[in-house]
């Protein structure tokens, strides 16, 4: 089992090289499978069960979905040994759909057939470090002149704005803007869409691009960025082709010193 932090650039290249028939994009109810250690997260699609990941901690690239909600899954089918009875999808990107669906409530008890033999973080207290502490991207670095215009991309969950996931992204932007005494900053919000394996296209809500742009600008200003800010948004969804469509749920921030 390979669990490690993959930089977004690396991920984009690796996914592009994947044969299209190995990709699987679908919406379904997540399932939680208990084990003697941490729980496994699974999802069923077209009569087959897929393995998404395990519960670890906040440092993990894979963060489990919610019972009570459907989950949007974008993954690549592998032929590795099944985990918790599920075909392993990797890489896999998931996003919890915001509306409640109380029919998503399957919690399976411990089954002697399923154990997790990699254990970066037990279900109780940690051993004193985050499970993926080494794989965490570095925090803000000192910026040396000459100061150049820099672009930052912020990714979002489906139909969502800023969440607990974003402070690191925001801090990187605030840091760069402050270190370079940025004069101008533009934020462009995008509305994403996702092409599922059955051909359906799911678009985010119309207002989301504007919300992302405005919210980002407001938070950056609130955190002390003094650059003149311009916001814009693209209300038409980014075209979806079923390949790394999660990247369409984004906003772009350009910082000009």
């Amino acid at each position: 089992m390979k669990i490690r932090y993959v930089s977004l650039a690396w991920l984009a290249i690796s996914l592009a090289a994947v044969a299209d028939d190995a990709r699987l994009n679908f919406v379904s109810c997540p399932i939680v499978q208990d084990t003697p250690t941490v729980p496994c997260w699974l999802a069923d699609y077209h009569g087959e069960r897929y393995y998404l990941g395990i519960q670890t901690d906040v440092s993990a690239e894979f963060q489990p979905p919610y019972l009570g909600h459907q989950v949007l899954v974008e993954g690549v089918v592998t032929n590795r040994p099944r985990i918790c009875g599920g075909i392993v999808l990797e890489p896999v990107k998931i996003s919890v759909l915001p509306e409640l669906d109380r029919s998503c409530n399957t919690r399976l008890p411990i089954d002697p057939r399923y154990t997790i033999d990699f254990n970066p973080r037990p279900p109780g207290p940690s051993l004193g470090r985050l499970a993926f502490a080494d794989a965490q991207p570095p925090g803000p670095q000192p910026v040396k002149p000459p100061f150049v215009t820099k672009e930052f991309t912020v990714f979002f969950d489906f139909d969502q704005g800023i969440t607990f996931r974003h402070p690191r992204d925001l801090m990187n932007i605030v840091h760069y803007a402050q270190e370079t005494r940025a004069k101008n900053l533009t934020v462009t919000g995008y509305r994403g869409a996702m092409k599922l394996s059955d051909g359906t296209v799911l678009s985010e809500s119309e207002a989301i691009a504007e919300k992302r742009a405005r919210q980002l600008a407001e938070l950056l200003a609130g955190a002390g960025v003094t650059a003149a800010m311009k916001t814009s948004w693209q209300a038409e969804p980014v075209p979806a082709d079923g390949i790394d469509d999660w990247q369409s749920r984004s906003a772009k921030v350009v910082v000009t010193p």
Partner: protein
Amino acid sequence: MRPGRFPGTGRPGHRTILIGLVAGSCFLASGGDRPAMAQTAYNNALEEAPGSWWGPGAGRRLAAESEWPNAFGTLGIVNAAGPIDTRGHPFFEPLGTNGRACVTCHQPADGMSLSVETIQRRWRETNGTDPRFAAVDGKNCPHLPQGEPASHSLLLNRGLIRVFVPWPPRAADGKPIEPEFDLEVVRDPTGCNTHPEHGLHSANPMVSVYRRPRPAINLRYVASNRFGVSPFIGKNGLLASVDPDTKKPVNMNLMADAREPTLKTQMQSAASGHLEMPGTLSPQQIAQILGFELQLYAAQVSSHGAGRLDEAGGPPTLGPRALERGRDGVLGNNTTAYVFPMGEVWKDLPEGTGDTEAARNAFRESVARGHDAFFFRTFWIQDSMHINSVGLGNPIKRTCATCHGMHMLGMDTANGWMDLGTTNLPWAMEPPQDPWSTSKPELPLFRITCKANLPPHPFLGREIYTQDPGRALISGKCDDVGAIVLQQMRALAARAPYFSNGSAPTLREVVDFYDRRYNIQYTEQEKQDLINFLSVL
């Protein structure tokens, strides 16, 4: 150990008794809204005598180390900076117009909180004239007849103070925040939320909720900015509150709803609100209160079951001196720092010679098992906003320490609010509504309707019923409804009832609440071990 309902606080079905008791205990009821100043002098005279009750302006000395009896043993208080002469000290003197001091609601014997037992005793001793029962917030609502037990039932039965905040909420710069939801009053047993002068539709719209005084001890830890403090709130990525003096972000761990960014802003609000002090605290008063708060440590120091808790070589987390020595701002949900480091000394103890020692050793072993249940025993935590929503999934298989992670105190380390279900239905305690029930709801109930054009609350949907919207009263966010900032877990033995709304009269009920809420299925032994553990903190 468990004070019953206070006579005369209006239990339907016992009307005859009620009238008798009200008549017997409220001869002072004048109908006035504010206790007369003269009563303060009377009360102060009464309090000259040392005892567990500490009256405002009593002028007593708070020794460097003192011990205060409670139902489980004694609480130890340490003034790290040495003994304090409280004469003229702003924490202990009545600074306002109603005769109260900070100490009125933050009593040494009660771990600088206030137990229901103390409140009831004080009512009996003063016939309800103590400034504690002042109309502003020591009564279910200021308009009710002063001095009648029924008017003060929430304070007398559950130890609750009225906390009123403007609606819609205002940002730090005073601008109104547009809430993400509509707030309606569904039930108003105190009459306050619908009152023309004090309510939601008054000229100065206010929401009244009812909360326990939080313990003003070990505040060096509570207010620590050393862990998890950033310009963005770790739980939702939004802007954190800042210290108005330094403009630096703060940990947002004060008060049930984190409305006060610092101890300094907190004390000013307390002085203007609870003490009805005109004007502001002087810089010297502020420095004195702050200095006092940051050097004060308290924890249980002896236990009827476990004996002395501060013996040399004993468990390193117990007793107030351990808190004085400990490091603040440390994440303890791990096996290096621990939340409550107990060591191994209370495990596998000898039988002991004689009954007393045997019983003591058995109790100590139970405490050690209770610690392990708190720290290692897993259960499914489901639908708890701000823990299930922060990257771990819903549900998560974790332990008590996942939420209570702060080393030595057991709060959350920063931005510590979560929805445990203490105030939100369906988990909040509500009396059964059936024709055979004689009890009636005592707390207000609000209906929250989250706006249709925004995402719903991820676990509760768009319509939520709550007794106290908690953090949402300040942030206006749908996701924050019923999220309450974790209190510290120290000095629990001295300050029942528990939870912000006083819904758990005993430690057993705290444990039973969790057992129901998360379907933990503790054994009776596990429950007793947990209770014993909590009782020595």
